[in-house]
């Protein structure tokens, strides 16, 4: 590295994954061979680790795992493909292609992720290459959708202020491009690109930002446009809060060191919120992002992966050290942070006219899953719309979908199609359901310890009875569920959250800030549905009766003494 290290990075022998990366020859490994091995539908662990950088995880249908083992069949290996979509924006043509590929090679569904990316499940190994190639042909990529690199860059798809949105989105895209890995391995493996292996030895600058071993862990960047904090900017490793003055984007406040993931039973791991360290102008954004990434590259923990996220690097060395190191690498200093104000982190549903005169329709999508169900042909309806829509599609950080930039000419037709297929803004659902978020979990996610996507809707059915009884149907309460503590649905920022421990059992957390500005606190450990309902029922009635004007549930449970406020991830586990 060019820079002299200002503190000694944490030592220890490199983890297995570090070895795999360093021996991978810039993410090649043996993928070309193992992808072709016809005896197994899976990949060896080393290559699976590398495959993540290419945007795919090997998974298996866990519902069938035990059954297939008895049948002398290997697990039903299949691949999840994640498609990078900076700011969640896709054209109609891209939407149609994703739809086609999901039917042809996937399991017939698409999923909007909590990071505004597309996810496709159930792709067989033999079809990976064809699928990835088609995705590339439609000008999208899976490269760096997973792995120890910068992930899909999030940005607010705000339909109110479309000029600013456009600008912020443009920056999200540029950051994404700038931090995209440069290795030719992706082209070689998936796109039949020419092999350039032999010349690599002479080119130490294959990855000018990442270097040969990439980052110690994943790295997440999000751009928020107040008053919406839908991207949960404080949950990002690196966050940018757009500062708008006189309807103009003047720059961004910079936040660093957020992150959701932790490990059950290990108090050295915890969720943390990013802290605002200053302000930069739009044109300085990329520089700040790049230098922050290189600091994490040089100082992150490469020995213990569960302590490798950027938040631990910051907490280990202190925020002051980080800003000094950053200024040193930038050669200039951030300005003082500007004032900003968040109102919420949820989505606003329905028809809204943007400042450019175009229309936007925000649809409620339960758990972000696009599929056809009996009586609700969401996937077909969206396909029909995409065939005529001249604007774009925006995947929201809350797993919803905006049909954006609808011209007045198309509005009527799209409205008719939406009606025909019953595409819904979720108005008939409780505000609780519309503020819910869940990760995929079972049966495909290998990390899940309990259900999430398949179970949260059922739990909500029961909670809605309580909500109705308490008269809270229109009260937004942020509720989130994940199957494991890795945090895909940003569970540490739910006013009510459930993190899976084992089948049917969850840790229950309460008291996050409604705008995503405060972590929640564990309330009960390892409880099942009966306890969840018997605990929440009196609490919701209590809230209905004794809440103060405008008081959110997350604030109420603290004032009422159910849980203590968490002021930093460092005291997340304290009693």
């Amino acid at each position, binding site marked *: 590295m060019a820079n002299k290290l200002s503190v000694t990075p944490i030592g220890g022998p490199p983890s297995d994954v570090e070895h795999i990366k360093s021996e991978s020859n810039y993410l090649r490994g043996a993928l070309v061979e193992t992808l072709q091995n*016809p*005896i197994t539908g899976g990949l060896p662990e080393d290559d699976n680790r590398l495959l993540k950088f290419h945007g795919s995880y090997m998974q298996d249908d866990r519902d*069938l795992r035990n*059954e*297939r083992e008895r*049948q*002398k*069949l290997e697990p039903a290996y299949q691949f999840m493909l994640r498609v990078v979509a900076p700011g969640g924006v896709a054209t109609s043509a891209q939407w149609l292609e994703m739809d086609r590929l999901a039917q042809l090679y996937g399991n017939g569904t698409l999923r909007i992720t909590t990071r505004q990316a597309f996810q496709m499940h159930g792709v067989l190994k033999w079809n990976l290459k064809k699928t990835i190639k088609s995705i590339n042909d439609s000008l999208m990529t899976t490269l760096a959708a997973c792995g120890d690199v910068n992930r899909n860059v999030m940005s607010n798809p705000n339909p109110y202020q479309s000029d600013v949105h456009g600008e912020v989105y443009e920056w999200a895209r540029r950051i994404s491009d700038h931090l995209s890995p440069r290795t030719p391995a992706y082209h070689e493996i998936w796109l039949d690109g020419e092999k350039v292996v032999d010349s690599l030895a002479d080119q130490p600058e294959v990855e000018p930002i990442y270097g040969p071993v990439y980052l110690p862990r994943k790295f997440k960047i999000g751009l928020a446009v107040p008053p919406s904090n839908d991207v949960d900017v404080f949950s990002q490793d690196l966050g940018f809060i757009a500062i708008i003055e006189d309807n103009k984007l003047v720059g961004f406040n910079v936040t660093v060191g957020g992150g959701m993931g932790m490990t059950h039973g290990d108090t050295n791991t915890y969720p943390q919120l990013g802290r605002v360290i200053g302000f930069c102008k739009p044109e300085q954004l990329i520089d700040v992002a790049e230098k922050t990434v290189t600091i994490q590259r040089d100082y992150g923990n490469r020995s213990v992966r569960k302590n490798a996220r950027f938040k631990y690097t910051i907490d280990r060395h202190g925020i002051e050290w980080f800003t000094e190191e950053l200024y040193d690498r930038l050669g200039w200093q951030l300005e003082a942070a500007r004032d900003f104000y968040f109102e919420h982190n949820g989505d606003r549903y329905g028809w809204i006219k943007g400042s450019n005169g175009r229309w936007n329709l925000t649809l409620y999508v339960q758990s972000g899953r696009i599929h056809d169900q009996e009586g609700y042909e969401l996937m077909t309806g969206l396909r029909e719309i995409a065939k005529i829509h001249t604007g774009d599609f925006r995947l929201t950080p809350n797993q919803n979908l905006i049909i954006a930039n609808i011209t007045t000419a198309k509005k009527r037709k799209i409205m008719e199609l939406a009606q025909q297929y019953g595409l819904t803004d979720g108005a008939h659902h409780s505000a609780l359901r519309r503020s819910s978020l869940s990760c995929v979990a079972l049966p495909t996610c290998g990390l899940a310890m309990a259900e999430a996507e398949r179970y949260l809707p059922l739990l909500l059915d029961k909670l809605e009875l309580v909500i109705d009884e308490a008269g809270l149907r229109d009260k937004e309460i942020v509720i989130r569920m994940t199957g494991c503590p890795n945090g895909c649905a940003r569970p540490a920022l739910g006013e009510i959250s459930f993190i899976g421990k084992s089948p049917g059992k969850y840790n229950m957390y309460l008291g996050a800030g409604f705008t995503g500005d405060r972590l929640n606190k564990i309330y009960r450990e390892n409880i099942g549905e009966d306890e969840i309902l018997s605990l929440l029922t009196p609490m919701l009635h209590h809230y209905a009766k004794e809440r103060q004007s405008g008081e959110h549930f997350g604030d109420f449970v603290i004032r009422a003494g159910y849980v203590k406020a968490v002021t930093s991830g460092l005291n997340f586990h304290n009693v």
Partner: protein
Amino acid sequence: MLQLQVTNSPFTPEQAELLNRLLPTLTPSQQIWLSGYLSALQAAVPTTAVLSSAPVLAEESATPVSQPAISREVTVLFGSQTGNCQRLAGSLSRKLEEQGFQVTQSSMNSFKPNGLKKVENLLILVSTHGEGDPPDNARAFHEFLYSKRAPGLEHLRFSVLALGDTSYEFFCQTGKDFDQRLEELGGQRLYPRVDCDLDYDEPVAEWIEGVLQSFQERLNPSAIATEAVKAADKAPGQETSEYSRSNPFQAEILENINLNGRGSDRETRHLELSLAGSNLQFEPGDSLGVYPENHPQLIDEIIAAFGWNPEEKVPFNKKGDEGSLLDALKYHYEITVLTKPLLEQAVQFSNGSQLQELLSPDRQQELKEYIHGRDLLDLVQDFGPWQAPARSFVTILRKLPARLYSIASSYNANPDEVHFTVRAVRYQIHGRDRYGVCSVHCAERVQPGDTLPIYIQNNPNFKLPASGDAPIIMIGPGTGVAPFRSFLEEREELGAEGKSWLFYGDRHFVTDFLYQTDWQRMLKDGVLTKLDVAFSRDTEEKVYVQHRLLEKSRELYQWLQEGAHVYVCGDEKHMAHDVHTALITVIQQEGGLSPEDAGAYLEQMQQEQRYQRDVY
């Protein structure tokens, strides 16, 4: 048993009817007594033809018996696919030796055809395959006899035992071929050919007895039949255990799982049975005989269609065992297959004239089409009204035969257990769901803890090389892969060092890769050296194992040149043929040989037992 008619026997209609009424009621010992009695009569009156009751006697009559004394040297040749004829040949040879004959026994393909000129007494035991084809190890000899090189055989006495299945059009064709050809070449028939259906024990015993007796008569014309009664006491069978084809062992089911993953359009069961207490043993390549039960729904429908009483007492067999009609149709009689002989006998119970008309000589093709894919219920429904007392009607049914399955485990690796693989056969034809008798019984009606009546069927023609160092190439798509699990388990258990290569195929990788994790483990542990797979429905263009053989032709030929043994197991109609053709192409292409020389190369391998097939 064949229904005697004017057309297929030398009797008048009146005689035939009397005999038809008498013969089914005879117990085996009565039959033997009668047979001996008639033979003795025949010895006294040389112009009378031999009549034996149980076997399906061939139309040709035996050679008259007044002959000069003959040589005591006998050559026994067998052509065997699954090992039945080979086992029976062994049994015959022992009996001949006991009576002081010098026996030369061999498979047809290890017999030098030129030696035929010197043979005086020849006994042939041969089965028939598919569309009247000879078994693999009989093919070359069969060809030789029909070629111009076949010598005159005026000095030869012979007799043929033919094994077959009356539900096939070309019933016992290979046996008939040999019988006819040997006569054309000048040979004299020592004893009439006997054609055996699936339930062959009794007719085989009769044939052996008849042959022995004919020899005795020629050696010592005063000998009478009494001696033969002893010889026929015991039907040939398994000798390492008290349990055999005729005395099956009730094996407890330890495991019964579907090997096809969810979403598959196939169902293949893997069953593990306990052999504890049976003394039964086997070698890789052997088969397991399983006696099934008929489908209860089909039984109910047949009983209802005839208007029978399920509790009526009926005979189970010719031995005089009796029990309820329900049990008879469940355990003892075949009800899923129609044969021409069955229809011929059923005529007597049909009050309508249609069945009789269908059987008229000018409607053979129609009859063949009718029989195909139909069962007893169709017959009942199509040719009523019936006047068919259950007690009499069941005696015209064939005995419910055991089904043979390739054994999928090594005894050494899993002592006291036997594993086998069976694919459930279900289809619709003639407007009704049809079920494979044994496969669906295994798939639907037996669980761990239940038992299955089983026996071991040795198959000497499908055996690992004697040397553990010899390379083996195994081609077994679908359930054809079963014996190779046994082969590889055995080689692993014995620490054999020879390399191995498996070709496997089925429809879909995800759901139909039988024993996938076993192969993966064996590959990892080096027990299996190479594995190539072809899944026909996963790609736009269908690929099968033969395509993989051709793709790997260079390496495959290399292995052949290194002395590899090639094994093919599975479907005979398409797969085995396509694989055979592919192997010839490989040898031709990589060895730079003409098609004829490539064929000879493979023929040579077959001679050396380096190309063995277990196809069905």
